[in-house]
């Protein structure tokens, strides 16, 4: 229902009277995480990745709302480590919210999404990178804000192709996530004509002293020469030890070394400095990718609610998935959602620890509609069937 008050001309200093405000309520749902064993003392564990991003998005939406007569409200739910997310959802969110920012792992996301009450909502996934959730297991009421593993792997592959580093040595960690990242790398290699000359699974210890000194050199001796070492180690258990310790001097890319990410502290083009500053002022730390995703989720909702002048789910969602929707992500291209799988269409940054190396899509990779669709599963390849 359109609030008729919005159609009236807005007056005076920009502050609109309280009574004229249309409320847009957003829930933010996450669960406390186990603190992982630290790799080193350099990276402090951040337990609240995502929440500050959502709050910054709310701030920005509400500044706009002051002029449009809308008010955005965020309610955060953090389920304790031993708590039950489904219970919390049923008790606190069901039938109370239309919009939920979900910061949960893949398995829990679809458990939630399949609840009957969730089907009446729009869920913004700000945590998963799984390609399965954007393909065979996609859900029509779930939007994915982070670039999938396939998008990241394609970004790396485009850059490697430009550098003509076509022979890859792929090292895969022991976890299921590492295997999924490796699968994405293999898909990209095939897509861009790269050659994976050697593939090995990391079986050594994760002890810095032993690993660093001897194992890496031995492990990276190969029969066939290669241009780059591609590492699949999402938890960061050993990937950082590879650089400078390989048998032959080769750069490291993948989950460590040169990484593919939607956001990075080295990024400052296209107005990014402004949001980096605003975020740091708010959170007292750099923006992590979950923060960026949550920011974009709340901003996407704000943009759609502003344009459609409603808080109603159907017109908001329809606008969000339409061609008219364009969101600024501070990465040079307008962001939008892929209508076939709910994935946010976005550039992917290629970053070294202290310098931004490139932004994919890399110049020269062409697409009939938008170069952004050279990253990840394009419409003809998608296995997402919305009716599931």
């Amino acid at each position, binding site marked *: 229902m359109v609030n008729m008050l919005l159609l009236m*001309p*807005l007056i005076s200093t*920009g502050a609109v009277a309280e009574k004229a405000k249309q409320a847009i309520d957003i829930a933010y749902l996450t669960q406390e995480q186990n603190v992982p064993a630290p790799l080193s003392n350099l990276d402090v564990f951040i337990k609240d990745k995502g929440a500050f991003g959502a709050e910054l998005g709310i701030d920005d939406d509400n*500044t*706009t709302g002051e002029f449009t007569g809308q008010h955005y409200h965020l309610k955060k739910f953090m389920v304790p480590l031993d708590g039950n997310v489904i219970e919390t959802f049923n008790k606190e969110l069901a039938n109370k919210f239309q919009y939920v920012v979900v910061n949960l792992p893949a398995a829990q996301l679809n458990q939630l999404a399949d609840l009957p009450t969730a089907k009446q909502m729009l869920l913004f996934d700000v945590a998963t990178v799984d390609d399965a959730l954007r393909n065979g297991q996609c859900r029509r009421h779930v939007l994915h804000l982070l670039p999938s593993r396939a998008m990241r792997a394609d970004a790396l592959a485009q850059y490697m192709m430009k550098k003509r580093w076509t022979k890859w040595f792929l090292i895969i960690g022991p976890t299921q996530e590492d295997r999924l990242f490796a699968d994405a790398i293999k898909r990209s290699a095939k897509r861009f004509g790269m050659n994976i000359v050697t593939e090995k699974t990391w079986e050594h210890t994760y002890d810095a002293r032993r690993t660093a000194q001897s194992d890496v050199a031995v492990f990276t001796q190969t029969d066939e020469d290669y241009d780059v070492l591609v590492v699949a180690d999402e938890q960061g258990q050993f990937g950082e030890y590879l650089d400078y310790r390989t048998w032959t001097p080769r750069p490291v890319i993948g989950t460590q070394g040169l990484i593919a990410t939607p956001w990075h502290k080295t990024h400052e083009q296209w*107005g990014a400095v402004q949001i980096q500053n605003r975020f740091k002022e708010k959170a007292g730390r750099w923006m992590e990718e979950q923060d960026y995703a949550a920011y974009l989720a709340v901003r996407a909702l704000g943009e759609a609610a502003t344009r459609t002048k409603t808080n109603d789910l159907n017109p908001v969602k329809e606008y969000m998935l339409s061609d008219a929707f*364009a969101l600024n992500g501070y990465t040079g291209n*307008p962001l939008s959602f892929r209508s076939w799988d709910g994935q946010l269409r976005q550039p992917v940054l290629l970053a070294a620890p202290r310098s931004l190396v490139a932004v994919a899509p890399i110049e020269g990779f062409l*697409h009939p509609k938008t170069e*952004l669709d050279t990253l990840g599963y394009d419409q003809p390849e998608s296995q997402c069937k919305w009716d599931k």
Partner: protein
Amino acid sequence: MILKKKGLGLFLTLALAGVVHAESVFVTLEKDNALAVVDPITGKLIKTVPIGQRPRGIAISPDNKFLYIATSDDNTIKIIDAETLKEVGKLPSGKDPETFALNPDGDKIYVSNEDDSLVTVIDIAKKKVIKQIKVGVEPEGITVSPDNKWLISASETTNMVHWIDTKTNTIVENTLVDPRPRAVGFTADSQQLWVTSEMAGTLMILDAKTQQIIKTIKFEVSGVTADKIQPVGVVIDKDSNRGYVALGPANRVAVINAKTYEVEKTLLVGQRVWNLAFSPDQKHLYTTNGTSNDISIIDLDTQTVTKSVGVGNYPWGVVAKP
């Protein structure tokens, strides 16, 4: 934002007084902390002078005596003698000034404070802040109408242009525009406001009486995907015959018929074209090309790019002095 109120009368006065100088084009170089001075007739870079940290926005006083340059990392707007290029004063711009506008009388400066969502109003003679006006998130494009009625501020993240009454310094109207509005410019008769949208790739023309959008032009360039067409700087000639829009990474300037609103042509310039300025006689248009480190000179009679002049790293803003 850049060249306003370059009255013909002033030009004649100078001519009669016998002090006609060769035209100079001033370009801020964001990454060189310097100002480039170009002779547009010969197409030569005359000199480059250090100017302060990260210079971006630039304007010239109506009497052509002073340049105002936002040196963003110095958190000030410097007043520079346009002849000697020596600093003669500083204005309290607030943090990280980038874009700003002079009023037609040249006695006030309005600064967009992007990080704080504010517009700062400065009395130039007193070098004092008169007022700070709360606007939307990330205000960028800013201009004053030639009749001095409206101050316009465009908020990039709020996607609005704010209509501020220059007498009261308060917002009286807000117009929702296409995503990430960048630059704003009035026609000489103050009847129309032209606004570019970086993300939608559009130019919107607003009626200053109703503050409503009367026309939206979506730019298309064959062989360039829509994502690369990111309109930035906009200027309209004094007779409202044609307007010109810099298309950013599409590396082109669009020529728009200001009567029919047709895009007549797009001219290939340097890379990531940002800001535009007319020559004082409006026979030429100068463009800053952010990533190819040059400016392009467009002959407006023939509508062709005649020269490109290498100036230094990240040319940002441009003004011309007769």
